[in-house]
């Protein structure tokens, strides 16, 4: 009896989290635990130059004495950093894939299951003249393939794994790495600096409009493995790039740590649009397992009239701790944050943004849509800071929370620090419960209750969904529905 109940539960879970499969590949794994040796091991594996090893070691030392951030409204037991693996790479015949043909077919199969047929994309692109999406896929700790390399190279765009960038364009990496998120920014970012294993690097040269969407898919596969990607995007003067990041992980009973760092740099008149669809495994309906998603994302609008916009759809992870931010240095620069965060069952999310206005006439816009269901808890935490020199700075914040059911919680914590009397800062916030009238209206028209919830919630999120690149908006809409399954009835 107990066994069949348990099996039924697992089958149900499997159906619900369709990305929860494990790929059976031999992995090349470092010994468990964290130490200076491990940091050296990772750096040696990647054949890194001395400066980078030193950088990592400095970060490691700093990390040892740093306290955990404790201000977020999250609760979880202390993390045992020694109980995880910090490096796991699928075993390859050679050192790494040179072309997509060298990639382990099982890996490609995994990506296909995730809806990213790497093969197909290249083939299609060869046959048909159409703009496509270049994908860098990160599997556990290493980048396994970057599609469309050559087409991008023609445009002068560099899009590769960060390990490759260290070899190919060390000067660029050295100049910008850690320049937006300093090593000692916070404990999670510091750990990432010490042990980051891979991630993507993008450089868009002056005046270039990147000819296609760039995309990275992260996947944690190996058990007990932390994933620490490092992404660095530099948009040179007058350039433009749109970048999308997607994430999944298999279902496991233990919690897995994901501590990524993303740094964006936009020079004069440059624009970076960064979109995330985060669907890490959230744990089961009882709150067992799931990813701890502790991410530091920050963009620097260094040049005048530059623009950085973050769009995120956060539906996964057991715990999310994430505040994609913009530092608006350049005169007239613009920062945007569009967010949908959905928590269900026992998920916890503390997410928001920081808009730091340093330059004159800088503008920022924040739209946050938080949906809490089940027994989940969610906080929006936002900071808008206007420095004395930011004459004419403007911010508009719209922060809406929607509650599904009556066992969930939503909190809104906006901080505003204005040190310039001329600045205009507006904040609007609403909290509402999903409307019985709306649900009944949908059901009267034949739409089943769960689908009705998904429809109403998608409507609630529309302003943000519209910001996503077309190809991903559809996927994100479906995800909204999937992540709310079981939240009513």
């Amino acid at each position, binding site marked *: 009896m107990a066994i069949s109940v348990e099996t039924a539960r697992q089958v149900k879970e499997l159906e619900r989290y369709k990305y929860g499969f494990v790929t059976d590949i031999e992995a090349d794994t470092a010994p468990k635990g964290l130490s200076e040796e491990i940091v050296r091991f990772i750096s040696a594996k990647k054949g890194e130059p001395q400066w980078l090893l030193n950088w990592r070691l400095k970060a490691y030392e700093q990390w040892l004495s740093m306290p955990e951030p404790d201000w977020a409204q999250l609760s979880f037991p202390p993390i045992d950093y020694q109980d995880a693996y910090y490096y796991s790479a699928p075993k390859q015949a050679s050192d790494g894939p040179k072309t997509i043909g060298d990639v382990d077919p099982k890996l490609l199969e995994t990506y296909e299951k995730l809806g990213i047929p790497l093969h197909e994309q290249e083939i299609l692109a060869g046959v048909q003249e159409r703009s496509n999406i270049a994908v860098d896929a990160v599997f556990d700790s290493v980048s396994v393939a970057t599609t469309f390399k050559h087409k991008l190279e023609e445009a002068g765009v560099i899009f590769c794994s960060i390990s490759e960038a260290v070899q190919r364009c060390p000067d660029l990496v050295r100049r910008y790495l850690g320049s937006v998120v300093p090593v000692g920014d916070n404990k999670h970012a510091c750990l990432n600096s010490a042990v980051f294993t891979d991630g993507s690097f993008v450089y868009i040269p002056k005046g270039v409009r990147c000819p296609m969407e760039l995309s990275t898919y992260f996947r944690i596969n190996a058990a007990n493995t932390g994933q620490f990607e490092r992404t660095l995007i530099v948009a040179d003067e007058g350039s433009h790039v749109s970048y999308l990041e997607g994430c999944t992980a298999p279902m496991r009973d233990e919690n897995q740590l994901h501590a990524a760092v993303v740094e964006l740099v936009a020079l004069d008149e440059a624009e970076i649009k960064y979109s995330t669809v985060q669907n890490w495994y959230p744990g089961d309906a009882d709150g067992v397992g799931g990813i701890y998603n502790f991410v530091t994302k920050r963009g620097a609008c260094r040049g005048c009239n530059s623009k950085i916009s973050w769009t995120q759809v956060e539906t996964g992870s057991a715990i999310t701790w994430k505040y994609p931010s913009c530092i608006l240095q350049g005169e007239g620069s613009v920062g945007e944050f569009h967010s949908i965060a959905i928590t269900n069952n026992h998920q916890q999310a503390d997410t928001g943004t920081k808009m730091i206005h340093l330059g004159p006439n800088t503008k920022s816009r924040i739209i946050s849509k938080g949906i809490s269901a089940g027994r989940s808890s969610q906080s929006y935490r936002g900071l808008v800071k206007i420095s004395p020199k930011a004459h004419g700075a403007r911010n508009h914040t719209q922060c809406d929370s929607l509650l599904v059911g009556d066992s969930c919680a939503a909190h809104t914590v906006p901080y505003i620090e204005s040190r310039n009397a001329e600045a205009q800062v507006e904040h609007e916030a609403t909290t509402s419960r999903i409307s*019985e009238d709306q649900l*009944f*209206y*949908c059901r*009267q028209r*034949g739409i089943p209750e769960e*689908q009705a919830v998904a429809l109403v919630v998608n*409507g609630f999120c529309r302003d943000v969904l519209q910001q996503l690149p077309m190809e991903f908006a559809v996927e994100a809409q479906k995800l909204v529905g999937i992540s709310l399954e079981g939240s009513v009835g």
Partner: protein
Amino acid sequence: MLEIENLQVAVEGKEILKGLSLKLPAGEVHAIMGPNGSGKSTLSYVLAGRDGYEVTQGRVLFKGEDLLEMEPEKRAAAGVFLAFQYPVEIPGVANTTFLKEAANAVRMARGEEPHDALRFVKLLRAKTKELGMSDEMLKRPVNSGFSGGEKKRNEMLQMAMLEPSLAILDETDSGLDIDALKTVSDAVNAMRAENRTFLVITHYQRLLNHIVPDQIHVLAGGRIVRSGGQELAAELEARGYADILSAAA
């Protein structure tokens, strides 16, 4: 099509319907008239399956099946449609999206293939035009910022797309100007069919000049107090509810 027997319904412990019986044969149009607060909307909500309406007595058979046992979406799939007295706004959901989800959900529940996307749009455009609505209204969020008249037309559009076998129209005529009233009536008349039944709830007799019912019932005090033909509407118009009610009491 629909048989209501001795239906008693309470809302928040207060008895609203007190033994209502009604028989609606297939292919007929019946009208229910009654003063404000007599329980007309309560009846329509109970038939559609809204939460919070407690059936304390009686039963309702729809095509021979126990309607009150079914979830609201099952009733819709079985062919029950309610045109709301106060249509609900759903911000951010385009009218077309909503109609498509509804139509396909109903088709799937009936074991039919979902609409072909192209054919659906064509059909939708044609019906939209018939109802004097603009294509632009299809792109707008469901009922959001619609005028009263637009909302009512939109209800009729949904009815046309869902092709119900029992359509309950709860004061669809209120708030309509004479032209809109005519358009809406034409739409209903065009849908009259042997296998389709209408229950038209109205406060005013004027609608019944356009949609001529087979029978008229007067609802008062939670019961049907009079039933009759077109002459009953004329009598109500001439003498008002008060007179008829005191005569019936």
